[in-house]
């Protein structure tokens, strides 16, 4: 029954293949965010006041709302909050900051704002990791890949576990972050 309903729904939806693929990628990336949160350790002294994992979307939502179901779930016994930030001032309270690809030009400015703050930065624009970002979604053999800039992570007094490193390929930035 369920299968039939799903099949029918899927067949009747006039979705283009590219768009469908885009959607699947967004979903996978949103799922990966959870694992980033799970295997990253924030310094206790810089832990946010509230015991929460705040996932901030800077400059728009590239997940088309697929990140929203994660709100309310927990990771490492902390509740996940998803919110959009538009100003640099809001960034301070974030555990993870996803920088929208459109915000690539603003990245250096944002990066400055994040200086001294333990915020895990994630983005999907090319060159994010090498330009001081920490985790970058990329395409490897037409599959989703993850690049990680461990130096940036360490600089932000964050710690990522091996489990996370297994998901990603480590990149070394052309110029050190900041």
């Amino acid at each position, binding site marked *: 029954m369920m299968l039939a309903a799903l099949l029918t729904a*899927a067949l009747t939806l006039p979705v283009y293949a590219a768009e469908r693929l885009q959607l699947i990628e967004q979903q*996978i990336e949103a799922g990966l965010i*959870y694992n980033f949160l799970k295997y990253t350790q924030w310094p206790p002294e810089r832990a946010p006041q509230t015991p929460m994992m705040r996932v901030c979307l800077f400059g728009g939502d590239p997940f088309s709302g697929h990140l929203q*179901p994660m709100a309310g779930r927990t990771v490492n016994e902390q509740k996940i909050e998803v919110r959009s930030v538009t100003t640099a001032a809001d960034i301070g309270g974030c555990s993870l900051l996803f920088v929208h690809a459109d915000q690539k030009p603003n990245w250096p400015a944002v990066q400055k704002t994040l200086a001294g703050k333990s915020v895990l930065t994630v983005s999907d624009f090319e060159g994010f990791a090498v330009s001081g970002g920490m985790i970058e979604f990329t395409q490897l053999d037409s599959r989703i890949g993850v690049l990680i800039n461990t130096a940036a992570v360490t600089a932000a007094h964050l710690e990522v576990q091996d489990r996370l490193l297994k998901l990603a390929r480590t990149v070394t930035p052309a110029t050190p972050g900041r």
Partner: protein
Amino acid sequence: VPQLSLRRILLLIVGTLTLFITLLAAKDVYGDWQRLTRIRALRDAAVSSDQFFDATQKLAVERDVALSMLYAPDSETIDELRIRLKESRQAADAALRATVAELNQYTFPDLVELRKQVETHLLVIPTLRPEIDRAVGLPHEQRNPDLPDRWSGEVTALMSATENLWIGFVSHFTDVDPIVTQHLLFKHLLRTITDYTGRERSLVGRLITENSDPTPEQIGQLLRGRGIVETDWQMSRMLADQSGLFPAIGPRYSDASSHYFTMRDMLQNLFYVPDARHGATYPIGVDLWFELSTQASDSLGALRESSISETRNYVEGLITATQREITIQASIFLLALMLCAYSFTIITGRVIRPINNMAGALLQATRGEPVTFLPPTGRKDEIGILANVLHAFQQNVEHIKRTSVQLVTSQEHLRAVVDTAVDGVILVDKQGIVRMFNPACVRLFGYQPEETIGKNVNLLMPLSFEREHAGIVQEAAGRRKDGSTFPMELSVGEAKPGGETVFVGIIRDLTDRKRTAQQLFQAQKMEAVGQLTGGVAHDFNNLLTVILANADTLFEELSDREDLRPLAEMTRTAAERGAELTNSLLAFSRRQNLEPKAVDINKLVAGMDGLLRRALGENIEIRLVQGAGLWRATVDPGQLESGILNLAINARDAMPEGGRLTIEASNTHIDESYSEAHDEVKPGQYVLICVSDTGTGMSDEVAARAFEPFFSTKDVGKGTGLGLSMVYGFVKQSGGHIKIYSEVGDGTTFKIYLPRSSMDWEAAGTEPVRKASHPTGTETILMVEDNDLVRQHTEKQLQALGYNVLVASDGPAAMKILERGDPIDLLFTDVVMPGGMGGRQLAENAAALRPSLKILFTSGYTENAVVHHGRLGAGAHLLRKPYQRRELALKLRQLLGPVEHG
């Protein structure tokens, strides 16, 4: 029947209680101990259960790793996985071995079949492993295409068999604790989730590797698995909540489920929507996929670890709680036992022992020993109150004892007063019933107490007692048992002892007093009459002297006058007769001139013989009895002759038909006791002259007045009425005493006591009456005397001599006593008695009844008069009245023989 003392009852109660407590405690402790054993078994079972889980988990890992290798896209990936496969195989083998070993300790028969299945599948696994190793080394197209499915199916079958074994195993422990059962179920759900996510991972990994679209069957398989997992998540949450597991594992649970649902969302459109990738490459690599799903499994594993440890904590808590419960129960049991023992000790020490002590003290108290019911420290509880009450009781009892002793003493005193009172004491109630009758009353009335008590007092006195006599002292008449009456003084008091009105009468016999008063009155009368007549006679004598002298002168001067001379003669004769009369009066008034001298009475009486015979005539026989060794008396002999003559003439007059006159003289002495009875007589030695006739006698009334002047029973003109008065006056003037004994019809005896001459005193020595000791005896004497006074007097004398005395007032009464059969040695009886039976008759009757009885007569008449008058036979023993105690004593011993000393 066993004695149920307080101590035993207490022992019984405490014993029962102890037994009850022990049984209860034993039951509880035993139950808890069993429970503890079961919980320990459960703990071990939970550990075994976790090993099951671990084993199947490990097996699932091996399965997945092996599948990943089979689906690996390149040799690089295969090489990477080779080490993991080896590790997972070793881990799975170890876990399975441990599980099988673990199972060996459980011998539940229903597990045998289940174990066999597990072991069968276990044997297949090692045969597939080399196949996989071989297949991995070959290119994909040369491999057996069934191998992954076969492998997957075999491992899953093994897992299912293990799962079934686990369920069978756990079913043995579900009754121990429902919470633990829920824990186990929760873990079972976790395992199911793990299993199905593992299958999904495997299938998805295959699709990614082959880069093929899932067939509808595969999509159905995925959807079914997802449905099961989602349902299991819901159920597990429910179970976690119900079993109380959630608070402990909550964060881990939340993380694991969040992770799972995130993964699910991630694949939402990739594999569950047909042809989602449109022929393009899947956007996720197989290694990334495996890593992601392994990470999700890690979250699940963390949750599992958490729940395992929580279960362990819970079971340990159960064990601790049960152990604590056992400890508490044992403590309560011990405490209860101690309380039992303590209360037993307390009750014994504080209640039973004091009660026993008090009982002992009470026993002592009843024996009159001094006791304390409680140590002086005192208590304020019930025992203390009891002791106080007992103490108060004892005090009361002692007070009552003292009072009763006083009461008894006082009652004995009163009794003594009543019993020894000379006066009669009588107690009469309102109805006139006699309640008390003292010994004096017995003497007065002749009744014994039992004869009067309960009877009306009218029996004793004709007048109504209480009404007539209350409150006053008066004379009344008492009635004796024999019907005679006596004067008595009766004083009656009213009292209300105990609210009942009673009357107490004090009765005094007035007989003696009346007689004494009578005698005194008589003496005083005689004295007054004497003085009067003396005075008159004296003056009259003077006048007569003048008349006589003048008559003599006239007689001589008138010798020539024959006509007048006889007149003078007549005057002289009349005057002479007047002078005689006055002399008689003077004699009575004891004013005659007496010339007392020592006179031999024998001689004097003998000299009167001729005179008496002439005066009395031939009809009367005269006997003169001379006393042997007779003392001389101090008396005027002429006057004595005149007096005897007077008495003889009186006797003659009393014997008109003739008779016998006896005059006898004897020595006597009047002792104090006789003197007391006749107060006009002084004790001392006397010469007694008895003048007895056998004439008509005189009544008591006549005898009482016989000495009064001018009192005469003779016909007018026959006597002057002065004869006896003259004798009386003369004897009294002479310091003597005269007494009349007379019975009507039997004759009269006059007894004249004349004081012994002082010359004789000198001759006989100057000893006065000596109170010599008289011979005594202890024999029983029946004494018969009609005169109350004499009877009482004689009774006392006999008792004083030591004799046992029975008394009777007349012949018939004496016969009754004799007939009663009391031992009586001697009959002592008056000769002359009223009531038909004289002394002689009585003696004859008595002798007939008791031949050995000694008989002693007594009489106011002289022995000669009585014996020779024919009243008694010759040889009879007679004691003359008045007799003295010595005479009585001697006479009695003469009859009874010498005193037996013994």
